[in-house]
């Protein structure tokens, strides 16, 4: 086929017109894809951290501290806050480490292991946050039950009318706690769920590649 031979000759000529990619760009390319998801996990965690910190500073006032003192959880609150921020700092460091690990992985197997590690870290992070919210809720509700006059009123009323009625507010409080936890769970699911799902897809694709090799 003459046309094909003609094409072959022309094919060699076109080398001069091909685009060139420089070494720096190649480095960028091989580091780009797998690291971007973990980078976002790190960025979101930091944004979240800053957001909650600003929110708690903005909403705290002399009155709110007085209320906390009145509930006798001032010291406990301080301890929990210090603990909470230390754990958050630790998680952010962990996310950073994961990000560094993934952006410098060379083998498929290692990359797969690192993806699993990232998923696990994020899951721990979400579980920790939900547990912390639970602890704070229990702390505030218990303290209120003992020291808040409004709550005491409810409890006193309850003891007057007998044990059966006392379950009403308690169940209500439990429902309230569950709703709060559920809302936070949904919040985290939305925030990190999308990234984790993408990571899982990458993992599956890598797994396929690994099997093919």
């Amino acid at each position, binding site marked *: *086929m003459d*046309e*094909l031979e*003609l*094409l*072959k000759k*022309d*094919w060699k*000529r*076109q*080398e001069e*017109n*091909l*685009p*060139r*990619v*420089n*070494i720096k760009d*190649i*480095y960028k*390319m*091989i580091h*780009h*894809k797998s690291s971007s998801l973990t980078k976002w996990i790190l960025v979101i965690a930091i944004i979240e951290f800053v957001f909650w910190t600003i929110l708690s500073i903005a909403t705290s006032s002399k009155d709110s501290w007085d209320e906390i003192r009145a509930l006798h959880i001032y010291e406990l609150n301080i301890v929990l806050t210090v603990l909470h921020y230390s754990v958050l700092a630790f998680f952010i460091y962990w996310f950073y480490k994961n990000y560094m690990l993934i952006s*410098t*992985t*060379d*083998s*498929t197997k290692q*990359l797969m292991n690192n993806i699993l590690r990232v998923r696990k870290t994020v899951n721990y992070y979400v579980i920790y946050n939900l547990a912390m919210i639970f602890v704070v809720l229990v702390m505030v509700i218990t303290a209120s039950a003992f020291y808040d006059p409004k709550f005491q009123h409810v409890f006193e009323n309850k003891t007057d009318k007998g044990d059966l009625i006392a379950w009403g507010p308690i169940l209500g409080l439990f429902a309230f706690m569950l709703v709060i936890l559920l809302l936070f769970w949904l919040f985290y699911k939305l925030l990190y769920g999308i990234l984790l799902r993408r990571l899982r897809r990458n993992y599956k694709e*890598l797994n396929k*590649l690994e099997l093919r*090799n």
Partner: protein
Amino acid sequence: MDPKLEEKFVEELEKNQNIVHKICRLYTNDQDSHNDLFQEITIQLWKAYPNFRGDAKFSTWMYRVALNTAITLYRKSKKRIKTEDYDRVMFKIASEDYDNTIEEQLKLMYAAVKQLNDIDKALVFLYLEDKPYSEISETLGISEVNARVKMNRVKGKLKQLLNS
């Protein structure tokens, strides 16, 4: 990670990048898709690099991984663009070297090759790269006889496309 391995890979790829660009031109129709495919092939080459033992030439190994990526991975994720940008595919030909008829003929040929399916395109690509059938068969994972038979069929298809 071994930084030396990475350095070596990047150097080799930089040196042999024409192969990847040529595949990109054959399998995509606009510059954005070209760049996308180039990046996808680069990532796949890098992922596969630890398995490259150096007993084959880097470029030979590269043909295999790059074509595999163009045929399998890329097709899955990117929809093909229908408007064919032949001017980009039709590489600029110095006018003093060719007369108009040859230029016209080449244009039609490129258009015909672009209409082939992904596997046939790979075959034509290796043929245009002047690879012997032994290497074509190895790269595409088919027997040498099969490669010859397929290539003859592709030539027939191209003739049909040119005449239609």
